[in-house]
């Protein structure tokens, strides 16, 4: 338990094993309100697993995760309630293909937050308008481009009015010309003070809106710094090597 009211998520000594493979080997991290934490690392480094542990889509093997002061790794906590406050955006969008865009966005608010249909739909339309997709409200996900799908996925998460958004490589499955439209939405969210944890390969995004950049390698955080320091003055040799390959 922390006394600092600004800390939204606190991770203590997080371990995750898949069978015999240890993917996370003791991660400690803090995410404060308004932070945009960008997590980078090579494929297989454990960065996605780390993000997915934060809302327990992956069950941590060991360690503690506090969200808004509550230990959500405690089996007695109702994780479903906390997940309502932690939006997640996936690499593969994961929109519900059998529902319209609008229904995708109103299902959670109506069933979980008990909003009325009118309220949920008005709110959803406002959000869709914001990402320039108000005219696609009645379309099915299969009728949208990748970039449009991901923008809908972001506003679907936002419709739950979360306190933090987790992004798991949100632009990696997109055609290059669609990456920009998704990053623009994410940037505008960041500027409005939305707390975000973003696993990505978009170094430009990290530099521009990240408050902290974290480099995960072989299951541990090996370097964490402000974007300026992180990119201009990397200290860890593996990070140097990684940056030289991706930039």
């Amino acid at each position, binding site marked *: 338990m922390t006394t600092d009211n600004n800390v939204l998520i606190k991770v203590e000594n997080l371990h995750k094993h898949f069978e015999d493979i240890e993917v996370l080997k003791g991660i400690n991290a803090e995410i404060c309100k308004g932070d945009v934490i960008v997590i980078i690392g090579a494929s297989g480094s454990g960065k996605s697993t780390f993000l997915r542990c934060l*809302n327990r*889509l992956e069950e941590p093997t060991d360690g503690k995760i506090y969200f808004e002061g509550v230990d959500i790794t405690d*089996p007695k906590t109702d994780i*479903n*309630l906390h*997940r*309502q406050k*932690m*939006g*997640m955006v*996936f690499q*593969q969008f*994961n*929109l*519900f*293909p*059998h*529902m*319209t865009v609008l229904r995708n966005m109103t*299902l*959670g608010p109506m*069933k*979980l937050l008990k909003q009325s249909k009118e309220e949920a739909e008005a709110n959803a339309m406002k959000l869709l308008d914001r990402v320039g997709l108000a005219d696609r409200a009645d379309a*099915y996900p*299969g*009728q949208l481009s990748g970039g449009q799908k991901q923008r809908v*996925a972001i506003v*679907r*998460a936002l419709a*739950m009015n979360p306190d933090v958004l*987790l992004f798991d490589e949100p632009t990696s499955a997109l055609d290059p010309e669609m990456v920009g439209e998704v990053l623009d939405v994410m940037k505008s969210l960041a500027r409005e003070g939305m707390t975000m944890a973003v696993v990505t390969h978009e170094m430009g995004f990290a530099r521009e809106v990240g408050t902290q950049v974290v480099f995960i390698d072989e299951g541990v955080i090996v370097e964490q710094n402000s974007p300026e320091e992180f990119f201009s003055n990397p200290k860890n040799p593996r990070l140097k090597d990684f940056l030289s390959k991706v930039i």
Partner: protein
Amino acid sequence: MNDFINGISESFVKTFITEDRWQQILAGLGTTLEITFFALILGLVLGFLIAIIRSTYDMNLKGKKSKSAGDVIVKILNAVCNIYITVIRGTPVVVQLMIMYFIVFLSSRDGIMAAILSFGINSGAYVAEIVRSGIMSIDKGQFEASRSLGFNYRSTMIHIILPQALKNVLPALGNEFIVLLKETSVAGYVAIQDLTYIGNLIRSRTYEAFFPLITVAVIYLVIVLIISFFLKKLERRLRNSDH
């Protein structure tokens, strides 16, 4: 030539008109439809329950240690379902029917009830595997997206997984429905006067094989065509979201 036409009309009369046999055929058809309808419903209910239990086990507990009492219950239920599916799929339906009628229903001899239960329990095993394959075919990401919004396992199943799974397996379920209808033709083994039994009865009474048997065949075919027509319609409606 006249003899030929006379012969045909005579066997037609014997098959349908004498002793009001057409009414027997209708009654037989009614029995077949009754057994099929209730067995179908029983099969769907059983099948869905088992599919949900089995896929819950497959997705969450397979090869893992039980963490709660709920886990243990699911594991036990899964084992029971496995035995059920193995036994039902491993034995002929007509044998199951005879066991039901001559052993389980020994005292009441309620043939129709025995048939409904036998065919329903039999169909349930197949429906279970069809629905389970549908559930398992849904991308894991659908689960994760739903859970990440805060939906629990049950709501995720109801709102996200089952509607998509059902759409995917509708053709296979329709096929199972048709198989069930035709399988009930062995009900005569336990003296139920279903459509096939009546056809055969008329054949043995009249010594005319052609009209009774062809009539029975045509009636089955027509029912199957009607079922197929409505299934296709339903499929098309559910395809609305595919683009």
